[in-house]
């Protein structure tokens, strides 16, 4: 358990044998190419496909007119291909299907769309302004696919989630100290190295076969069944290895278009793969955030009240952002104790690329707003920022904003995380300046985070185990391998329970909804937790069967037996045993007579005791536990042009129990890298006309080698979670959460100004410093 175990698919990945959805090419596979909108907001006057149809090899061209489907995980507000109007730059307007990629590409260029530009809504502020253009004039008429959601007809507000605990306005009025701050954070792309893509074929009996690089094949299955009005079982979704997800492959988008394409060519197979430009512009991104934070405290810096307003820039369509809004609401104060909390989270439509889940489900920008305000509060009350945080950390016995009473099991050990993070960064407190050489100054920043799953209360996961004739085990789970090592971890948990080497656990890296047990979605860092429970349940089932067979063979009661190291043995006398391989497929007596059959374990897990948040107060249980941690950053800033180096980045989080240390560390470090990327360079940039400027990796910059911190420090505190597999808490997303805040805090300390947005390019810092007149 505690030593490094290579990923099960490691050798495929270093030899090129690992196959992703775009890696399959067969004769007869058609290619689809999207035509996307160059404008953020416009009426579609006409689509002229005459020249495109004339390209040899073109089989079909579809526009929004050919189907009446409206899509949306929560609110059905989005046509798969724009209908009548486009609402963002990059919105799919039409799709060409041809017998080869070259013909599809050529025809796509020949499609002419005539647009009548409409005034674009370029920001949350514009969206909420009096008389703002309506992104969705029909907002009131959309079907709600999943409650809760509260669209406000006649406005650009797609949803509003609330937390009302105590009376924050009153408490704030009485507070000795009140700090107020506003933040504006841009949208962020997932930029997984594999762009989103899908293949689809419709069989003669109507069965839809989809191959998609999705984090949620079972959600794809249900969505397609709903949209195309067929039975769920008549949709089969296959997901091979996925080249990075980060939330961006949880929504359902290209799959719907691919089914329409396949239908248009008589069910023949078709492949639709995003170019990088489309992946950034056309497929959903992480929402932007505007925030207004008011924290009330005593003169000594003890928090007494918080009034919080968050506006998510969800772009043109809602997708899963109402769920993001509720996740933000449930964690709205950050991991701090406050009795009076009022929070409003709005999903606001703009003419930006639409939003969806992004690693951390809204917590990263929310944490930025809270943590930066905590720094301001520390300055106001004259306390060390880390000390101020320590004094306010939420703990067992406290209640969360949605009124869950916490205990050690629900919440890891945050004080310990913070203490260790301080040690690791070599915390020297506020205003560490002048320590670098000549014009270089250093600064440090710290941030704390917490997060729970905010998953649907009925999310499920399953596991199936079959035994091989040599006693080794096959494991089938429905979780997708996106790179986080989920499948390997599942194998490890099983190997641990059966007390066999992990090499004896075999699993397939793909997911096939026809044969694999359902797993809700490989998101919210919940795969290990949920799959792990299912695997343990399945192992229990298999063990019970093995013991039963053992009892028959060894002529004793199954209760007397145990299973491990490939044997079913007598607890009292382990030398009396039968090999698992001899009972795995039934037992054969020396005379040939046989009993039993193949041992197959089945396991299932469903979330329990979670509840939807009350629409008025937010009261409810959003997840099975909260993962907590502390992060810190040290930078060295050149005060001449405000370039900087990141010297240290620290994460200490309570992992409950670390299952595969090298993999766990890697996942956390990767999250940190991404968070530093958002803090320093990443953002979707729009021009004055609302046009998207950064739709390539040439302009949407992400971290490269050499830009990582000079030292990463990742450590784990282990406070086992009793109801979790082996005590392991979710950790997949968390490395990202406090990094932008800690970076901004460190740079603020170094520059001597308040840096309240990202990305913190040198120019951004220079501008703030100049405006502050320093």
């Amino acid at each position, binding site marked *: 358990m505690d*030593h*490094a*175990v*290579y*990923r099960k*698919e*490691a*050798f*495929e*990945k*270093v*030899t*090129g*044998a*690992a196959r*992703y959805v*775009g*890696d399959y*090419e067969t004769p007869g596979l058609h290619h689809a190419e999207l035509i996307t909108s160059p404008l953020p907001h416009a009426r579609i006057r006409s689509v002229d496909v005459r020249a495109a149809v004339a390209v*040899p*090899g073109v089989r079909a061209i579809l526009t929004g007119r050919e189907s009446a489907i409206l899509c949306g995980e929560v609110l059905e507000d989005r046509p798969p291909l724009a209908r009548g109007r486009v609402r963002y730059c990059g919105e799919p307007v039409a799709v060409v299907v041809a017998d*080869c*990629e*070259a013909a599809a590409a050529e025809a796509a260029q020949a499609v002419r769309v005539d647009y009548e530009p409409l005034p674009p809504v370029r920001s949350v502020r514009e969206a909420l302004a009096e008389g703002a253009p309506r992104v969705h004039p029909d907002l009131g008429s959309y079907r709600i696919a999943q409650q809760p959601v509260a669209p406000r007809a006649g406005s650009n507000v797609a949803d509003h989630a609330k937390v009302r605990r105590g009376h924050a306005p009153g408490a704030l009025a009485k507070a000795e100290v009140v700090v107020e701050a506003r933040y504006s954070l841009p949208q962020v792309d997932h*930029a*997984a*190295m*594999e*762009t989103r893509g899908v293949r689809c074929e419709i069989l003669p009996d109507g069965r839809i076969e989809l191959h998609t690089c999705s984090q949620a094949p079972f959600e794809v299955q249900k969505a397609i069944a709903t949209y195309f009005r067929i039975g769920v079982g008549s949709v089969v979704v296959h997901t091979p*290895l*996925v*080249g*990075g*997800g*980060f939330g961006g492959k949880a929504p359902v988008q290209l799959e719907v278009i691919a089914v329409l394409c396949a239908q248009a060519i008589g069910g023949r197979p078709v492949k639709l793969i995003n*170019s*990088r430009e489309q992946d950034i512009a056309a497929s959903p991104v992480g929402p932007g955030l505007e925030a207004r934070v008011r924290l009330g405290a005593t003169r000594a810096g003890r928090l007494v009240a918080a009034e919080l307003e968050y506006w998510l820039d969800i772009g043109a369509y809602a997708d899963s952002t109402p769920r993001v809004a509720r996740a933000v609401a449930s964690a709205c104060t950050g991991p701090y104790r406050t009795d009076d909390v009022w929070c409003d989270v709005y999903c606001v439509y703009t003419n930006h690329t639409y939003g969806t889940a992004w690693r951390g489900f809204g917590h990263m920008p929310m944490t930025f707003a809270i943590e930066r305000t905590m720094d301001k509060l520390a300055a106001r009350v004259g306390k060390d920022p880390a000390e101020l945080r320590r004094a306010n950390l939420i703990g067992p016995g406290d209640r969360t904003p949605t009124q869950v009473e916490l205990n050690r099991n629900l919440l890891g050990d945050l004080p310990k995380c913070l203490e260790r993070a301080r040690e690791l960064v070599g915390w020297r407190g506020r205003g560490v300046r002048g320590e670098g050489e000549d014009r270089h100054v250093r600064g440090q920043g710290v941030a704390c985070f917490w997060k729970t799953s905010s998953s649907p209360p009925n999310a499920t996961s399953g596991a199936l185990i079959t035994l091989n004739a040599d006693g080794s085990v096959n494991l089938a789970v429905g979780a997708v391998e*996106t*790179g986080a*090592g989920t499948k390997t971890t599942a194998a490890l948990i099983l190997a641990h329970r059966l007390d066999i*080497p992990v*090499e004896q656990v075999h699993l397939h890296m793909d997911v096939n909804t026809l044969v694999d047990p359902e797993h809700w979605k490989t998101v919210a860092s919940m795969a290990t937790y949920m799959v792990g429970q299912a695997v343990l349940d399945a192992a229990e089932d298999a063990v019970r069967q093995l013991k039963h067979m053992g009892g028959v063979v060894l002529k004793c009661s199954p209760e007397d037996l145990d299973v491990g190291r490939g044997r079913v043995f007598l607890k009292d006398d382990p030398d009396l045993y039968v090999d698992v391989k001899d009972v795995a497929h039934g037992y054969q007596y020396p005379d040939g007579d046989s009993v039993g059959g193949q041992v197959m374990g089945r396991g299932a897990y469903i979330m329990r005791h979670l509840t939807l948040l009350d629409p008025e107060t937010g009261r409810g249980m959003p997840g099975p536990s909260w993962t907590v941690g502390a992060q810190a950053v040290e930078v060295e800033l050149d005060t001449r042009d405000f370039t900087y180096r990141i010297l240290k980045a620290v994460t200490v989080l309570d992992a409950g129990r670390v299952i595969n240390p*090298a993999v766990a560390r*890697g*996942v956390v*470090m*990767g999250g*940190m890298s*991404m968070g530093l990327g958002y803090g320093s360079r990443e953002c979707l940039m729009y021009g004055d006309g609302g046009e998207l400027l950064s739709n*390539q*990796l*040439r302009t949407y910059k*992400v*971290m*490269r*080698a*050499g*830009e*990582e911190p000079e030292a*990463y420090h990742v450590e784990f505190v282990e406070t086992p979670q009793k109801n979790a597999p082996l005590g392991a808490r979710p950790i997949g997303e968390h490395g990202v959460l406090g990094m932008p805040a800690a970076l901004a805090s460190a740079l603020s300390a170094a520059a001597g100004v308040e840096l309240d947005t990202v990305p913190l390019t040198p120019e951004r810092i220079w501008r703030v410093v100049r405006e502050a007149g320093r």
Partner: protein
Amino acid sequence: MRRDELALDVNGEACRVLARGADTLLEVLRGQLGLTGAKPGCENGDCGACTVIVDGAPIKSCMMLAQEAAGRRVRTVEGLAGTAAQQAFVERFAFQCGYCTSGFLMVAQALCEAHPGADEARMLEWLRSNICRCTGYEEIRAAVRDAVARAKAPAVQGTEPVASASRQG
């Protein structure tokens, strides 16, 4: 659409493919030869996931026409076996989703061959050509450091086949 026959030398094997003049080496490797280790990540020269080795140099195969590769020696990740770089990437956990891995490996391999024992600055300059979205790069740099060091000490190189490393778990 016109497609002409084209002779390529890929991983030491003579291959014949049918390609348009406008087809990139990446498209032909993947679509015609089934060598899908090289990945499209941007088709714009930015990400490096499509990197192969052509006559010893790392090349982004999305920026080379297939025709341009005629008469030159092309190597893809499928042509690597038991290299120090592959082994180091496994041992150092230098990938998660694996999509960028072939590209990084080809850069590492080209570096090992052209500059065994390369210094940190050169290593970094070569690695900046590629993007990884999952790791924090520390693991990749450690792996390449190992590989480059092993390339310098040929006695160790390749003595341990990659597959044996799986035993560690």
